[in-house]
C-alpha cells in the first residue's frame, strides 16, 4: 500500500484505514475497564488532526499502511482480523524499526486524549480552560519555615 491512497476529503482515511486506526488507538490507550476512562478510539482523533495537526495526516497514513502491509505479510490477514496479542506483537515490531514515527503518533494521541471532556472528568478535572475561573491551591504551611528562621542569617557579609 502506498501513501497516495490517502483520500483527501473531510474524512481523510478509507474505511479500512479507519478500522486499523481504531484498533491501533485502543492498543495505545484502552479504556480503563471500570468505566472511568474511555479508550483512545472513542476520541475524535481524526477530527483533532484535521483541525489542529493536519500536517501529521500523511505520517498517520504511513503508519497505517505499514501496519496493513505487515499484517498481510506475517499473518495473511487484515490487521483487524488478528487477535489483540498478535496485534500488539506486530505493532511493537514496527515500533522498534520506525520508532520516531510511532513516537510522533503517540504524542498526537496523548494530546488529543488528554484534552477530551470525558477524560478530564475521569481525572477529576473540570473540562474548561484555566481562565477565567482559575484554580484553587492549598496555601501551604509556612510554619515549616521555623527551623530556617532559627538558624538565622546566612547571607555573606561584604
Amino acid at each position, binding site marked *: 500500500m502506498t501513501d497516495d491512497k490517502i483520500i483527501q476529503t473531510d474524512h481523510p482515511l478509507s474505511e479500512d484505514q479507519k478500522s486499523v486506526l481504531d484498533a491501533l488507538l485502543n492498543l495505545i490507550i484502552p479504556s480503563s475497564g471500570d468505566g472511568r476512562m474511555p479508550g483512545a478510539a472513542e476520541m475524535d482523533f481524526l477530527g483533532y488532526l484535521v483541525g489542529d495537526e493536519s500536517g501529521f495526516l500523511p505520517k498517520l497514513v504511513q503508519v497505517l499502511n505499514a501496519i496493513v502491509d505487515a499484517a498481510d505479510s506475517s499473518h495473511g490477514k487484515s490487521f483487524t482480523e488478528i487477535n489483540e496479542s498478535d496485534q500488539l506483537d506486530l505493532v511493537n515490531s514496527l515500533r522498534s524499526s520506525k520508532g520516531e514515527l510511532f513516537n510522533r503518533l503517540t504524542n498526537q494521541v*496523548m494530546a488529543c486524549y488528554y484534552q477530551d471532556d470525558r477524560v478530564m472528568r475521569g481525572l477529576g478535572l473540570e473540562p474548561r480552560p484555566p481562565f477565567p*475561573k482559575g484554580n484553587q491551591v492549598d496555601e501551604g504551611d509556612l510554619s515549616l519555615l521555623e527551623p*530556617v528562621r532559627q538558624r538565622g542569617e546566612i547571607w555573606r557579609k561584604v
Partner: protein
Amino acid sequence: MADEIVDVLIIGAGASGAAAAWSLADTGMHIMCMEQGGWTRQSEYATNFRNWEVRRGKQLQSSPNIRGLKTDYPINDKESPISIVNFNGVGGSTVLFSAHFPRFHPSDFRVKTLDGVADDWPIDYFQLEPYYQENDRIIGVSGLDGDPAYPDKKLPLPPIPISKMGNVIGRGFNKLGWHWWPSDAAIISQAYEGREGCINLGPCNSGCSQGAKSSADVSYWPLALRKGVELKTNCRVREITINDQGMATGVIYYDDEGNEREQKAEVVIVACNGVGTPRLLLNSRSSQFPDGLANRSGLVGKNLMLHPWNVMDGFFDEGLESHLGPQGSCVLSQQFYETDPTRDFDRGYGIQVTRGSPPIATAINGYARGDIPWGRGHHEAFRKHFGTNISVSICIEDLPELHNSVTLDSDLTDGNGIPAPRINYRISENSQKMLAHARIKSRELLEAAGAWKIHDHGQIQYAGWHLLGTARMGTDPNNSVVNEWGRSHDVKNLFIVDGSLFVTSAAGNPTTTIQALALYVADAIKKNLTNLFD
C-alpha cells in the same frame, strides 16, 4: 525623512526599557521608546482556550527561531549548547517569563574581592537597594519577609501559595537542614494597583490571561504612557547614528511597512537585552567606530553569560495537585549559593523548586521517559505521575569569559536585512563541576522529601533566557563598555540599561536586578541632567 527630534530615545520596550521610560518621564522631557514588536493581548493567551495545552506549544513559542514572527530576528546559536529564548514585543521577554524574582546578594557585586574570580561591580547591593524597593512597588512583588538569605527587605504583597508540594519539599529541606523560602515572584498574589490577583492559571510562561503576572506591558507601561512617554511599536532599529563629534544623533529604523526612516534624539538609551544590544552596537559601524559603536574597549558582545540550567523531577506517592499554581514560582533555596572552599568550583548555585506538569505534558513526557506505557498499564501509570511531581531547577552562576560572545552573523539576516546575532558559547569547566554538584544535591533533596522516583532531565537546551554581560559596566574604559552609571565611555549621550550591563551573573533569575539597574541609570541621568555629557 527625519521625524521631530526627541529628548530621549529608548530602544526596546522590555523589562529595562519600560522601567527607564517610566522613571525618566518625571523630567517632562519628550521620551520616545521604539519597539520592534507590538502589544500582545491577554485574550489571546493559551489559557483562554479549552485546548490550552496544545496551543501553548505552538503559540508564543519561546525560541525566536521556532516562533519566527515578523517581529522576531533569527539567532544563530548553533555553536552554543544553550539556545537563546526571548520575546520581542511590548514587555519583551517578561511576557513569557516565569516571574521568579530573586534579588542579587551583596556578595554578588564583589566576587573578585571575596573569591578572586571575574570582577567586582562598580556599584554595590546597597546602592541598588532603593531601586530594588522601587521596582518591587511598581511590579507588586509577592513574597515573605524575613528571608535569612538576604538583608532585610519588605515586599508589598504576601507570598504566592506554596501549596501541598511546598509542604513536602519544605520538609525535605528541613530534614537536610538546608535553607529554603517561598519564592519572591513578580506575580500579584492579591488585587494591587487596579489589577486583579493571581488565580493560579498555571503556565505563566505562556502569557498571563489574568494580567496578574507583572510583565512590563501590564506593570510599567500603563504608568509610563500615562506620564506621557511616546511608544512606537513595530519599529525595528537598524543602527545608531553619530555626528563628527562622536555623539549619538538618533537612529535609522524600519517602520511596520518596511520603510527606512530616521529618528533624531538628544540622548539614546539601548534596552535590547544581552543579545540585541551588542547586535545593534556592532551593526552601528562608522569611520569613528569601525568595530561597532561604543566598542573601543573591544568588549561589546564579549563575556556573554547564560546561566546553565539543570532540571530534575521527583514523583511522590501522595496527590500534590502540583499541576496547579504559578508554574515557575514555589520555593527557592540558597543553601549552595556562596563559594565553599571545600568544593572543587568557585561561586555557587540557586535551587528553584517549580510546579508539576499538566495532563498532556505529563503523558507525553512520561511516555518519552518510558514511565507511561501504551496498553493496559497506561491509566495506572498516568495516575501515579499526574499531579505528583515536584521539579527542582538549578541556576548556576555563570562566570564571564571573553570567548563567550555575540557577534554578527555573516549570512543570516532578519526580515529587514539586518545581520542576525551569532552566539559562540561554551559551558566552562567550573560550571560543569557546579552542575555535577547540583545534580547530586537535587537528588539528595528529592530523596529526603520522599520521592519514589527521580528523573534527571540534565542541562536544558532551551534555557537561554538570561542574556547577560555583553556591554558591562565599570570605571576603566579599557575594561568595560559603560561607566558606573550606564553611560558609554566612548559616546557621552549613549546609555545602556539592560542585562548587558552585568559584570557577573549571580545565581538567580536576573529581571529584578535588570529593572533595578534601569531605574538606577535613569535616576543617574536625572541627577546629572545639567552636566550629562561632561
